[in-house]
């Protein structure tokens, strides 16, 4: 209480409103509690980030400590179960050649997988139950497997389910980057030019039409975009470019580009409108035309913001799961051809997590992939936030 009154003495007048602030005069428990409670809840978002860090890494960690007595679910009967379920795709070549053209049942490899995942609900729950029980019994036979998995981690083959599993994350990383490049090459120019149009050229009515439309696009569920890509876009693009594999990096990239457009557009537009009006007026007063002002004055002034927009667009595409699952073909190929199927990091987690035995090596590797994705997007956001914003502020304030 004494502390409060002291504070009150220091400045009784609110610096912002210039009015006398009475709240500081009297100490009330209800107010004090409310403030502390609100503050506590506000820390929740920080806590969640910390928890995500901790728990995603925790599940990925056993892969690096093969000798620790981490309980494993490698008891014989679960292993049998796994091999039984995945009998079809033991062979590496079968997996990569299949190219899983979802949507065409004629492909034998595909229909085999379909049958295997059909009625998955019952399977997973029973599987979980057995593995859960064994989890508590625990046998240490997973150590060797972890060590072997660690060696294959930087390989180019992603064959998690076989006699000799290989977890070559490199293939997935290459696939993810390939698709990211395609989608950003597609989305960034369109979104930035459209934002420039909205910020510099469009009339008021046009603006009020474009901005809500793009907000609407941002609200499109990614599974709907994925569905559109799978059903319509894939066939449409195949008719134009005449490539062999119907679902490939190109289709997936375009579809993810559609998902990334609203993000890039919104942030770019914000950056463009944040450029001070004086720039615009000065340029026009010097005799430059509207388009010259837009291109040579406003656009350069907003480059850090546009850079941030592209970064966040990359982050969106990098972690996109549903579109990747539905439209990329999901074969871990690493060629440079954009018309080949690829498998991304996020899609791998989405496709395989439901079918792994909790706690085994494959499970840990999937969490390791998750950690990679998390670190990557966290870093991208941090760069966009601190580096770019600082630069933008400096530039606009003319320092």
């Amino acid at each position, binding site marked *: 209480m004494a502390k409060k009154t002291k504070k009150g003495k220091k400045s009784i007048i609110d610096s912002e*409103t210039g*009015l006398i602030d009475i709240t500081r005069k*009297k100490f009330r428990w*209800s*107010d004090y509690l409310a403030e502390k409670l*609100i503050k506590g*809840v*506000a820390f929740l*978002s920080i806590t*969640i*980030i910390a*928890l*995500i860090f901790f*728990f995603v890494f925790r*599940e990925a960690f056993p892969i690096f400590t093969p000798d620790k007595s981490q309980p494993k679910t490698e008891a014989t009967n679960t292993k049998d179960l796994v091999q039984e379920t995945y009998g079809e795709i033991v062979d590496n070549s079968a997996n990569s050649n299949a190219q899983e053209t979802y*949507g*065409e049942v004629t492909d034998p490899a595909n229909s085999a997988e379909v049958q295997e995942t059909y*009625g998955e*609900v019952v399977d*997973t729950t029973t599987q979980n*139950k057995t593995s*859960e029980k064994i989890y508590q019994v625990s046998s240490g036979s997973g150590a060797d497997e972890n060590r072997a998995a660690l060696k294959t981690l930087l390989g180019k083959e992603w064959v998690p389910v076989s006699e000799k599993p290989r977890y070559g994350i490199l293939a997935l990383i290459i696939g993810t980057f390939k698709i990211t490049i395609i989608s950003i090459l597609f989305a960034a120019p369109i979104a930035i*030019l459209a934002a420039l*149009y*909205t910020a510099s050229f*469009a009339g008021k009515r046009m603006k009020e039409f*474009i901005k*809500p*439309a*793009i*907000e*609407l696009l941002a*609200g499109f*569920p*990614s*599974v*709907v*975009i*994925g*569905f559109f890509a*799978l*059903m319509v876009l894939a066939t449409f693009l195949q008719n134009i470019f005449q490539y062999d594999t119907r679902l490939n990096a190109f289709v997936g990239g375009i579809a993810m580009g*559609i998902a990334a457009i609203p993000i890039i557009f919104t942030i770019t537009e914000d950056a463009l409108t944040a450029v001070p009006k004086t720039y615009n007026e000065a340029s026009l007063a*010097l005799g430059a*035309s*509207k*388009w*010259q002002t837009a291109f040579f004055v406003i656009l350069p002034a907003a480059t850090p913001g546009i850079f941030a927009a592209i970064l966040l667009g990359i*982050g*969106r595409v990098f*972690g996109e*799961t*549903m579109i990747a699952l539905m439209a990329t073909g999901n074969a871990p190929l690493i060629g440079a051809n954009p018309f080949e199927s690829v498998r991304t990091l996020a899609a791998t987690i989405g496709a395989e*997590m439901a079918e792994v035995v*909790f706690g085994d090596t494959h499970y840990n590797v999937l969490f390791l992939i998750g950690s990679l*994705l*998390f670190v990557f*997007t966290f870093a991208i*956001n*941090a760069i966009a936030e601190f580096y770019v914003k600082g630069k933008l502020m400096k530039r606009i304030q003319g320092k």
Partner: protein
Amino acid sequence: MIKNKKDNIKGILIEGLTLSSALLIIAIILTMITVIVIGGKSQISWEFLTSFPRDGMTKGGIFPAIYGTALLVIIMSVAAVPFGTITAIYLTEYANENSIIAKTIRFAVRTLAVIPSIIYGLFGLGFFIKFVGVQMDNVFMGGQLKWGQPNILWASLTMALLTLPVVIVSVEEALKTVPKELRAASLALGATKWQTIWKVVIPGSISGIMTGTILAVSRGAGEVAPILFTGAAYYVATLPGSFADQFMVLGYHIYVMTTQSANVDQTLPIQFGTTLVLLALTFILNISAIVLRYRIRKKKIG
């Protein structure tokens, strides 16, 4: 500078280029809507919306998926909206804009907004199911498996984390539109800070809280990746009756029907129908949010 003809043509070309980019985006949106509406509209009927799937999912309706989606977003909102609103209140009413705490929270919120949704799924699995759920089983069920597996509660809570930043951002924007004079007047009349917030600031920004809730619901209804392995099921014969049940969701239904069902061509109408229902749902929600927000912004100016 003397404007010459060449420059003029260049200007028209460049303006045309930017305009066509904007139009291309609009065209993409319209194409997607048209294709889905044309493909799905014949499927939409009262029966489709209110009946269970039949004949190995090749016929019948999507009622369980609609019901599951509704339940998911309700539980999610109950968890996300209060916490999101309180965080926004802290950021606008209590925290000093330049303090390290406020900056850290803002950074955390923005990070939450960009973390890929699949990571939330992993977190839900690693934290809610494998940690909280298993502990709950040990304490309440004597080691018997009940909570330590995917169910609607864990899926909804995972989704709540994902939609938390959406709520925070919208509510914050609304709180800022409440004029400073109103707060000052309330304080001058002798109300405490908390009374001011409760009786003046929150009622003044109720439409913002609504917008946040609607946007969160729309996001939560459409996301699939976080619930892939925290509770969504391909098919359950009964509606979820307790928090420990698995459930069907529209988005997941679309995903499994298109990629994993035995006969994709046969179920094509159902796929289009389900997609149309999901799209219409998110559309209605989004448009009402846009209208609400537009009103709030107008209020701010006027």
